[in-house]
C-alpha cells in the first residue's frame, strides 16, 4: 500500500465517522436539519464528479450542471408519473398536450429511471467528449464547449414546456417508493440513504484515482502528447472519465430531486455549474474526498450566511473563489498538505533526523 492510498483511506474513514455519526448527533436528529444536510451530501457527489475530470484529468467541464439536471429530471419524471396516477401530469394539460409523450412512458418503471438517470448523462457526456477529444481539443476550449452545451441544453429544456414543464420545472412529486420503503425525505433513514450514496461515490472515485486508469489520466493531464507515444489512446481515456463523471453527476441529480421534491431548470443554469467549480476549487480538485468536503463546507456556509446577507452572499462566494485561486490554488486539501510538510520539516529539524528531508519530499506529493 502506498502512503497516498493510506492517507486517502484514513481520510475516508474519518469522513465516514463524521457524516454517519457526528452530523446526525450534532443536528440532534432533527428531521428538517438532516434534510438540509442531505442536500449538501447530494451536491458533494456532483462536486467529486467534477474533481474526477478536472483534477484527475485536467478537463474543466463547465457543463457538469447539464448532466446533473438530466439525472434530476429523470427522477422527477418518475415521481411525477407516480403522483399523477392514471391521469396525465397536470402541466401537460396546461400546455395542450393531450397524450403522454413517448419519452415519458418508460419512466413508469423505477428500474428504468435509475438506469436512465445514470446512462443518459453518461451517453450525452460521452458524445460531446468523443467529438472534442477525437479532435484533440484541450485546455480552455473544453471549458468553452461544455459551457456552450450547458446554455443550449438549458434553453431546450425551458422551451419544451409540454414535456419538461418549462420554467416551472416538475413540481408536485410523489414520494419515492422503494420495495418495502416509502421514502420520507425528512427522516434519519433518508439521510443515511444520501450518506450511503456519497460514501459509495467517494469510494468509487478513490478507486479510480488509485487505479492505473487514474495514473494514465494524470500522465495525460501533464503531457498528452508524450502519453500518446507510449501507445495510449488519449481520446478514449478522456472520453471514459467524462462518461464516468457525467454518470456520477446524474446520480447526484437524482438524489437532489428526492431531497428538494422538485426539479427545476435552474439546476442546469450557468451559475449552478460555476458553483460546482467553486466547491471543487475550495476543497481541492486533486482529491475526490476534498472536493466533497469543499461542497459540504461552502453549502453549509451558504446556508448560514445567505439568510443574513441575502444580497451579499453571491459577492462573498465570488471573493472567496478569487482568494482561493490566488492564495491556495490546490484548495484546502493542498493547504493541509503544505502545513503537514511544514510541521514535519520542523519536527525533523528539532530531532536532527537526517532522513526527514527525503521523507518530506515524498509526502509533498503523496498528500
Amino acid at each position, binding site marked *: 500500500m*502506498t502512503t497516498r492510498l493510506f492517507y486517502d483511506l484514513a481520510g475516508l474513514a474519518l469522513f465516514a465517522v463524521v457524516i454517519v455519526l457526528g452530523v446526525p448527533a450534532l443536528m440532534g436528529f432533527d428531521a428538517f436539519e438532516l434534510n438540509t444536510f442531505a442536500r449538501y451530501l447530494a451536491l458533494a457527489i456532483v462536486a467529486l464528479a467534477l474533481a474526477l475530470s478536472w483534477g484527475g484529468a485536467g478537463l474543466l467541464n463547465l457543463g457538469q450542471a447539464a448532466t446533473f439536471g438530466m439525472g434530476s429530471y429523470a427522477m422527477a419524471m418518475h415521481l411525477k408519473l407516480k403522483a399523477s396516477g392514471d391521469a396525465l401530469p397536470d402541466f401537460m394539460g396546461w400546455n395542450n398536450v393531450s397524450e403522454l409523450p413517448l419519452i415519458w412512458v418508460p419512466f413508469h418503471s423505477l428500474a428504468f429511471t435509475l438506469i436512465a438517470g445514470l446512462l443518459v448523462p453518461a451517453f450525452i457526456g460521452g458524445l460531446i467528449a468523443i467529438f472534442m477529444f477525437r479532435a484533440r481539443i484541450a485546455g480552455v476550449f473544453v471549458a468553452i464547449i461544455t459551457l456552450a452545451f450547458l446554455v443550449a441544453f438549458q434553453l431546450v429544456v425551458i422551451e419544451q414546456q409540454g414535456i419538461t414543464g418549462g420554467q416551472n420545472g416538475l413540481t408536485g412529486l410523489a414520494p419515492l417508493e422503494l420495495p418495502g420503503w416509502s421514502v420520507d425525505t425528512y427522516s434519519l433513514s433518508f439521510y443515511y440513504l444520501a450518506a450511503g450514496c456519497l460514501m459509495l461515490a467517494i469510494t468509487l472515485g478513490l478507486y*479510480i484515482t*488509485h*487505479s*492505473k*486508469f*487514474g*495514473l*494514465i489520466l*494524470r*500522465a495525460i493531464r*501533464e*503531457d498528452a*502528447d*508524450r*502519453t*500518446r*507515444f*507510449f*501507445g*495510449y*489512446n*488519449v481520446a*478514449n*481515456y478522456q472520453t*471514459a472519465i467524462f462518461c464516468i463523471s457525467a454518470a456520477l453527476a446524474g446520480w447526484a441529480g437524482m438524489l437532489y430531486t428526492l431531497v428538494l421534491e422538485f426539479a427545476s431548470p435552474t439546476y442546469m443554469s450557468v451559475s449552478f455549474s460555476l458553483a460546482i467549480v467553486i466547491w471543487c476549487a475550495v476543497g481541492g480538485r486533486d482529491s475526490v474526498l476534498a472536493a466533497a468536503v469543499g461542497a459540504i463546507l461552502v453549502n453549509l456556509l451558504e446556508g448560514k450566511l445567505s439568510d443574513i446577507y441575502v444580497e451579499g452572499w453571491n459577492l462573498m462566494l465570488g471573493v472567496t473563489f478569487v482568494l482561493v485561486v490566488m492564495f491556495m490554488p490546490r484548495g484546502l486539501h493542498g493547504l493541509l498538505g503544505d502545513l503537514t510538510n511544514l510541521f514535519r520539516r520542523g519536527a525533523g529539524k528539532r530531532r536532527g533526523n537526517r532522513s526527514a528531508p*527525503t521523507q518530506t*519530499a*515524498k509526502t*509533498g*506529493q503523496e498528500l
Partner: protein
Amino acid sequence: MSHLQVTDLRVDFGGLRAVDGLTFGVKKGEILCLLGPNGAGKSTTLDLICGKTQPTGGSVRFEDVEISRMFEFERARRGVGRKFQVPSVYKELTVAENLAVAQSRKPGIWHALTRLSHSGRDRFEPILEKVGLEKRADVVAGNLSHGETQWLEIAMLIAQDSRLILMDEPTAGMTIQETARTAEIFRTLSKSHTLIVVEHDMSFVRTVADRIIVMNRGALLAEGSITEIEANEDVKTAYLGH
C-alpha cells in the same frame, strides 16, 4: 529483410522541404546512427517514423506493415518507441509512476481500470538498478537532477520495451562517465531491440554505431561504417562547407 524500411520519404513545411526523398533500411538488432549538420532533417526523420509529423509522401514500413498513415499511439502499440531531445518525463509523477505509465504493453482502458496504479512495481526494480535509480523510486520526477532525469527517461524506454527505439541526442548534457554507461546500456539493448540514434558526440557514435547514415538538406548523403564515413569527401564538404 529490414526491420524498418523507409522509402522515398518526403515532408514539406510550407515551402521548405525538410526531408526530401529519403530511403534507408534498418536491420533487426542494429544500431543505426543518423548524422548530419544542423537542419539536415534528422529529428524530422524520427518525427516522421514515430508519427509526430505526417509525411507528404513516401512510405514507412515497420515489420512489413505500412505505418506512415497511422496515429502515433497506434505506431507505439506496434512497437515504435521515441525518446525526445528535451527530457520528457512526467514531472508531477514519481519515478515509479513514470515507469508504470511507460510500461504500456496493454494500453487499453479496461486493463487500466482493473489494476492499481502501483501494480507491477517489482518488475521495475531491475530496470531502476540498471540505470542507478533504485533508491529514488518514490521521488517526484520534478525533483530529480538533470542527469537522473535522463536516466529515468532511458529506464522508461526499457520499460516500454519497444522493438524499435528512436533516440534524439540521448547523451546531451551527460558527463563522460554517464555517456560511457549509456553506450553500455545501448549495446545491451541492441540484443533485443533495433535502435536509431541521432547524435553529435562522435566518440559515442564510434562506440555504439553498427552503421551510420549522414543526411544533408533532407536527403541521404552517405551510408556506411564509421571508417567509411570519416573518409568520405562529400561528408567533409557538407560539414565544413568547402
